[in-house]
């Protein structure tokens, strides 16, 4: 790194060596980020004997693809998958709708107590989940929502961060646009849906990615709500796998872990832009 002081002299040999070394170290470190995922997949394609062989081989041949359908059968992964999809999609769509409506209300309408209310809303961001966790559980019990989709979804719809994030964005949309639509006879809902939401798309997309990811990976919330096997989401399936509920074969266990990890990695590879920009933008918590 000592080279950066003389970027105007790229032919400098010592500089090149240092740069090369730094580059290599960073890239090897990057490899360390990926190795666990690679090893997970490689393990998932072995027989038990190959997984326990010494010395372990990097790639074993032939690959045992049957582990995937087998793991899918051993635990009700189809159901877990469905649960995770239902919960994450509902939380994402529901909270985006509620939060963007509220953000619109805070950003574009004037009413008494608005600023005080907004401040109070920001204050709720300081309340950690651990404080509300036990009463939330008791509340869901009262509502008879334990071990059900409403119990997994509805608490996830409440949260001030999305309102704050979207409101900051919507405030930059000029009022003239809204007025122009009003002159054309648009209703306030139509203005929200046809004027404000399309303009707020980058913020909504970023928030959608993080909300979905948060819901998909959530562990403590479902851990408290779910009682039965059928209501498990994928992270809870992992906890059952690791507790040895289903099977003790590491290749099958790693195939199970792949079911949880690989869809998210695929989404990440496609939507990486939103992740990286979103974090740089708002200092969002990943």
């Amino acid at each position, binding site marked *: *790194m*000592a080279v*950066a*002081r003389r970027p105007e002299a790229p032919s400098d040999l010592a500089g090149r060596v240092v*740069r090369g070394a*730094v*580059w290599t170290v*960073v*890239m090897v470190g*990057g490899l*360390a*980020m*990926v*190795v*666990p995922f690679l090893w997970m997949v490689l393990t998932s394609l072995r027989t038990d004997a190959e997984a326990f062989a010494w*010395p*372990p081989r990097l790639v074993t041949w032939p690959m045992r693809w049957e582990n995937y359908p087998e793991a899918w059968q051993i635990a009700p992964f189809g159901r877990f998958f469905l649960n995770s999809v239902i919960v994450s999609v509902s939380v994402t769509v529901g909270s985006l709708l*509620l939060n963007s*409506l509220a953000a619109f*209300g*805070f950003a574009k*309408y*004037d*009413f008494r107590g*608005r600023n005080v209310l907004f401040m109070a809303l920001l204050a*709720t961001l300081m*309340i*950690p*989940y*651990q*404080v*509300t*966790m*036990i009463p*939330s*559980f*008791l*509340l869901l019990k009262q509502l008879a929502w334990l071990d059900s989709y409403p119990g997994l979804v509805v608490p996830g719809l*409440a*949260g*001030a961060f999305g309102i704050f994030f979207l409101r900051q964005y919507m405030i930059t949309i000029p009022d003239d646009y809204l007025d122009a639509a*009003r002159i054309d006879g648009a209703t*306030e809902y139509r203005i929200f849906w046809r004027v404000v939401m399309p303009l707020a798309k980058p913020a909504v997309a970023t928030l959608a990615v993080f909300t979905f990811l948060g819901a998909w*990976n959530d*562990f*403590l919330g479902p851990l*408290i709500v779910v009682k039965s096997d059928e209501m498990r989401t994928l992270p809870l399936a*992992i906890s059952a796998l690791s507790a040895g509920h289903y099977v003790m074969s*590491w290749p099958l*266990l*790693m195939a199970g*872990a792949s079911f*949880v*990890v690989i869809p998210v990695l695929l989404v*990440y590879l496609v939507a990486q832009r939103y992740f990286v920009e979103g*974090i*740089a933008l708002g*200092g969002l*918590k*990943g």
Partner: protein
Amino acid sequence: MKPRRNQAAWGWEFIAPALLLIGLFVVVPCVWGIGLSFTQYDAIAPARFIGVGNYSRLREDPLVWSTLMNTAIYVLLTLPTSLALALLIATALHQKWFVGRSFARGIYFLPNVTSLAAVAFVWEWLLNPEYGLANAGLRGLGIPGLGWLSDPELAMPSVAAVGVWHGLGFGVLIYLAGLRSIPEEVHEAAKIDGAGFWQGFRSVTWPLLTPTTMFLTIMGVIGGFQVFQSVYIMTGGGPLDRTRVYLYYLWQSAFQNLEMGYASAMAVLLFVIVMVLTLVQRRFYDRRLQAWQ
């Protein structure tokens, strides 16, 4: 131009649904939780008011202290390591000559998007004493394998290492954003004054990154005090309670021992500790920022 109905009515109509939910699932539980902390409650029999009984018990409970200590150790192991590594990597990636920057950035952020529970489970396999990749590597070098998660001295560092691995990309991205926000002229000025890379870094870059570092330490402490999943999956609090962290004990008290009142008092204490630590950090960084100005 005003909307057809009055502004206030529309405003309230739009914010009402979200506010109602936040009230029901955040504000009410928060007040309820504080109330519960003054009771004895097993979620079956009616709650019994016991005054500050739970709080006196907290003070005397050796597990509260040992789990708080374990949590503090976790934070002390993860936070400085994450910050140092993130800053190093971000600084390297920020250099103009770094080829493949966005690729490297993407790779470092990769673990962050995955479920910590799932990757902790994968790590459990990597750290398996007999068949794991880590010990295979060590044995290949002629070193006997280690009990990464079973050795009482090693278990917490192993859990912490997984935490660092999982969260590193976040720090890299935030530091990169911080580095990008420093105007090029500042570096130029330092160079004209004859500062080398290291000198420039120490007297220009590092001070100007203070807000970024502050954000990351505050987030790191908050996150570190809430560590749960990796412990739940990899060690279950063992061996010899060495990885039993505060939130894990809280969860056990509430949902395994059904001591909801006591666990609520634990939650209030956690909130207070995190709050105080956040304020202390803020003050510390504000002083430093002032000293540099």
